[in-house]
């Protein structure tokens, strides 16, 4: 799927110290993936809790803005852990990533999700965002959940497609 112009970069990744070390250490990949999955649980859990609130589900006793504000630092920390743990995993098997469809799709969706979060999502969950029409916020909530879920699924798909 990726253009051949990316090939030298992926080949270089596989030759770096980080890539070689993770590939040659038997327990490194599953250990890093454990942290990746734990951080995914925090991020995706937060996205679910915050966005299902727009449908009146889940944490009903707190407002949308309150829940989003309380969980925001956890979401950012888990996103950082996901990126930091994801890089060595990708570098240890760059050719698998280069040849798969899932990896480039995942990267594009991730970029989209980060942009969406810091622009639209953040504005709409700010405390004074009460003017927001319910329909609009529900659509935004659906989009957020769908986007992050697809990123998780695309990640699972890297070794397969």
């Amino acid at each position, binding site marked *: 799927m990726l253009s051949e112009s990316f090939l030298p970069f992926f080949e270089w990744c596989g030759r770096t110290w980080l890539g070689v070390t993770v590939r040659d250490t038997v*327990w490194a*990949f*599953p*250990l890093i*993936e*454990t942290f990746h*999955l*734990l951080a*995914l*649980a*925090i*991020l*995706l*859990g*937060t996205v*679910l*809790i915050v966005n299902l609130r727009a449908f009146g589900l*889940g*944490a*009903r*006793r*707190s407002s949308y803005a309150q829940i989003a504000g*309380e969980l925001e630092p956890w979401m950012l920390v888990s996103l950082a852990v996901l990126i930091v743990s994801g890089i060595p995993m990708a570098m240890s098997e760059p050719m698998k990533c280069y040849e798969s469809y899932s990896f480039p799709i995942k990267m594009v969706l991730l970029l989209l999700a980060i942009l969406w979060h810091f622009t639209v999502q953040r504005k709409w969950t700010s405390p004074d965002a009460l003017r927001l029409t319910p329909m609009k916020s529900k659509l935004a909530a659906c989009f957020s959940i769908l986007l992050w*879920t697809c990123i*998780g*699924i695309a990640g*699972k*798909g890297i*070794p*397969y497609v």
Partner: protein
Amino acid sequence: VSILGVCQWLQSLPWASGIKESSWQFPVIEGIHSLALSAMLWPAAILDLRLLGWIMPRRRVSTVAAQFLPWVWIGFTSMVLSGAILFAAEAVKCYNSPFFRIKIILIGVAGMNALVFHKTVFGDIASWDDSTTAPWRAKVAGGCSLAIWIGVVAMGRALAYA
């Protein structure tokens, strides 16, 4: 009948071997298993962290529990169901793996921990619900729960690559 015999029989069932042979069924079920993990683990961790007093100190433990425990149950049920299907497809591999055995034991210990917590200190929540710090027994239960679930995830990953 040995446990290994049961595992071999389970794995040989047409639907179970079909999952293993199909190119997409195993990763899709595994994906659902991972998504269910997110629905369960983080709400559970929020309650654990509140018990430890690390987050939402001004919110009552009973409120946090009422808000997040339903998620834990829905997520846990989906995890057990999807996990059981994954197990059936790879029953013999799981049976032979020390990581799988540790994983099952850890889930059992997590269940015991939750049961003891609910029967003892949580049953008496009215007496400490208004305080920002939970009793030490509740903190121990929260800390143990966090550590055990991290171990469960680690064993699951180790199992996949062993």
